[in-house]
């Protein structure tokens, strides 16, 4: 059991007061940037990087990584309370999280999200600790066609998110994908749909659109409806937390979410976003209570909020074991290590056991600290849900303005956000679902990137695909997945009749 021995040594290193302090600062900062919409972990980590360098490679890594996974804890807070996603990976949580708040279950949603994050984070670390080197080797053996095949599989898995009206859902996905093409194209450098406006060259940013679609649309809705006193007012402390039924229904989604997140964490790009969307889609497809989704199903909070946490942990695998940062945030961690002449790569664990195991242990501690930090906050935050609209509307408004401006300090994004809010309100009125639109924006870019890299790679010779067994297996999984989901859906239907 040399693994355990290493881990115990790691704890010894991580419990060193200086390292523990870094861990605490990191996760507190992370929770803060997570709660604030618009301010993401990347910005916070870039600011912390020059400061972290002073404390040596391990302490710096602990601090920066703490900000990263800490942000995944806080990200759900505003999604659940005021319908504004705090991070891109918490967009999907707005659907059922916010509905739970309207039903007076904000506390339960926040608590489940914190507990799910803790469980998933811990599972993610266990997987990282045990399987990092072989997982990294697998990531390297995947070339452009394999990544494209995985993205196609994800796309099919996510298509169930198109809502009750598949046609309207498909239209929204297409509209979102169109929005993602605006700007200077990421591969050929050509301007697309910019109409000569300099700010459009950067493209339509995902954050202001999501903030506007959900946040501003919510303000309009609140303002239009007469005030109904919230049922939260007389809630006792114990009732803030999930009841037995809610706990029971959350266990499996949390475990499934952790697993989905671990799978997606290894993908290039925005693993946490893809993981949370996929987890929601899976939960909705296999749930016997399909009708409850969109109306405050706790599974729709538990799954995605777990998935994004294990995804960010597993996103460390390509960084630590290949030395290749798949996600932009990982590039910052890499820079922090390089400043100390520590180069991650296949030999990293062997050459730097102190750093690797100290880091692993610090992440266990960090996740635990986050749970202790976040659970008491639930009671405090849940009170927001009891506010009257005339108090709540300005708060949401300021958060929306702040969130859309902060991403890149451009007034243009504020206009995009307000525009998205108005469009979102109109679309909802006509029964168009908004989530597929956001999904189209996220997937559009990823699919396009992978498709275009792969076609360049093939250089016109599609028979080359036949020489890639992994690609063929993944492509074959697509019909298998569809069949499985159909079957699961039918079983539910039959059970429903029996009851």
């Amino acid at each position: 059991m040399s693994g355990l021995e290493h881990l115990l040594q790691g704890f010894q290193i991580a419990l060193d007061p200086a390292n523990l302090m870094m861990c605490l600062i990191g996760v507190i900062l992370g929770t803060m940037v997570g709660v604030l919409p618009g301010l993401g972990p990347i910005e916070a980590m870039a600011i912390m990087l020059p400061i972290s360098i002073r404390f040596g490679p391990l302490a710096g890594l602990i601090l920066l990584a703490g900000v990263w996974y800490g942000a995944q804890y806080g990200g759900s807070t505003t999604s659940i309370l005021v319908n504004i996603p705090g991070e891109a990976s918490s967009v999907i949580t707005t659907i059922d999280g916010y509905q739970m708040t309207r039903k007076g279950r904000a506390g339960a949603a926040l608590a489940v999200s914190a507990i799910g994050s803790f469980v998933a984070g811990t599972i993610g670390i266990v997987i990282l600790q045990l399987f990092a080197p072989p997982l990294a080797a697998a990531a390297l053996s995947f070339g452009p066609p394999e990544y494209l095949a995985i993205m196609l599989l994800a796309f099919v898995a996510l298509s169930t998110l198109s809502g009750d009206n598949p046609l309207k859902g498909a239209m929204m996905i297409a509209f979102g994908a169109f929005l993602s093409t605006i700007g200077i194209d990421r591969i050929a450098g050509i301007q697309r749909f910019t109409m000569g406006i300099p700010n459009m060259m950067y493209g339509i940013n995902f954050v202001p659109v999501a903030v506007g679609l959900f946040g501003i649309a919510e303000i309009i809705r609140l303002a239009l409806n007469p005030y109904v006193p919230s049922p939260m007012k007389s809630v006792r402390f114990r009732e803030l937390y999930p009841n037995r039924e809610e706990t029971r229904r959350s266990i499996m989604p949390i475990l499934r979410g952790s697993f989905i997140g671990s799978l997606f964490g290894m993908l290039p790009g925005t693993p946490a976003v893809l993981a949370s969307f996929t987890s929601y889609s899976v939960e909705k497809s296999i749930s016997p209570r399909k009708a409850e989704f969109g109306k405050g199903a706790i599974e729709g909070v538990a799954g995605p909020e777990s998935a994004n946490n294990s995804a960010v942990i597993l996103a460390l695998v390509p960084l630590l074991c290949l030395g290749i940062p798949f996600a932009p945030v990982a590039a910052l961690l890499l820079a922090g290590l390089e400043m100390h002449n520590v180069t991650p790569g296949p030999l990293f664990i062997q050459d730097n056991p102190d750093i690797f195991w100290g880091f692993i242990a610090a992440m266990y501690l960090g996740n635990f600290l986050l749970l202790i930090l976040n659970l008491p906050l639930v009671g405090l935050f849940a009170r927001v849900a009891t506010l009257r609209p005339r108090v709540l509307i300005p708060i949401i408004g300021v958060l929306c303005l702040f969130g859309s401006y902060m991403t890149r300090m451009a007034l243009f994004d504020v206009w995009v956000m307000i525009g998205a809010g108005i469009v979102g309100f109109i679309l909802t009125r006509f029964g168009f679902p908004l989530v597929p639109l956001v999904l189209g924006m996220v997937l559009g870019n990823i699919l396009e990137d992978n498709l275009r890299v792969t076609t360049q790679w093939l250089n016109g010779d599609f028979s080359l695909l036949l020489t890639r067994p992994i690609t063929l297996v993944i492509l074959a999984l697509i019909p298998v997945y569809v069949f499985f989901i159909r079957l699961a859906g039918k079983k539910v239907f039959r059970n429903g009749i029996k009851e």
Partner: protein
Amino acid sequence: MTLTVFCFGLLLTGVEAYPEKPIKLIIGYEAGSATDLIGRTFFKHMEKELGQPFMIVNKPGAASALALRELLDAKADGYTLGMSCSVNVLKIMGHLPKTHHDFDVIGIPLLTGSVLAVPSKSPFQSTKELVEYAKGNPEKLRLSTTSKGAVFWIHARYFERLTGAKFNLISNPGGSSFIATQLGGAHADLGFAAYRPLQGQIKAGNIRMLGVTSEKRVAAFPDLPTMKEQGYNMVVSGWAAILAPKGLPSDIYKKLLDAHAKVVGLKAWQDFCTATGSVGYPEYTGEGAIKFMDQDAEIQKPILEEIGAVKK
């Protein structure tokens, strides 16, 4: 008389005092990108030199043209600076009607040559062998590099022009992680990129370097011959320039130039350059940097024209 002395004194302190408040630095790229990291590290040293903190603002978009637009609107008082890696070609690309001559150039803190890299199992042991094979088998070898029109893509294209070889050029989006994965897993036959993103895979023995496009050998890998040494007159580099709005008061401009040259010469900065496989020359301050960007634009222009990126 007293008044004159007083005014003169005020003037003098005004000069002496710069900078007396924090300086804003607009970086034209995302937080956490390669240029952002260079800027944040360099300005940590500049802070010590000038005695005032820098406030860093990221304004990504349009190959830094958005950031430079804001810089052009700023007062030329030395309290707003900017960073760009392509200011010398933005005009011919139609992103910005200005060039580096429309700014007061402070300097170029570091230059990063492209490395020509191959997977370790590749049969090619030298650039010459690779070029010979590629000439006989046009578009057969997969060359993985950054997006079309971006600096390493331009270097790859320049390599084709100089050698007469033809490759299947794969442009990848975003940073260089795609290139590192494709080379490390031997999904591509060669690549043009910065040393830094490949470093992990190079040290792990999955990627091998055949040459570097810098003028002289690079301290991070002194055994690697330059392209010039191997008989290809290919001297190009990626770089990042620090700019100020045109018309800085001459004493402030001088103070910034002196600080720049001094910081580039610092051991701490030279160490940073070595760790990232780059080089920093104190003489690329002010005029030296302008001359470099003029030459670099001449190399880039015909390649950008060829892909239709040049706006007439």
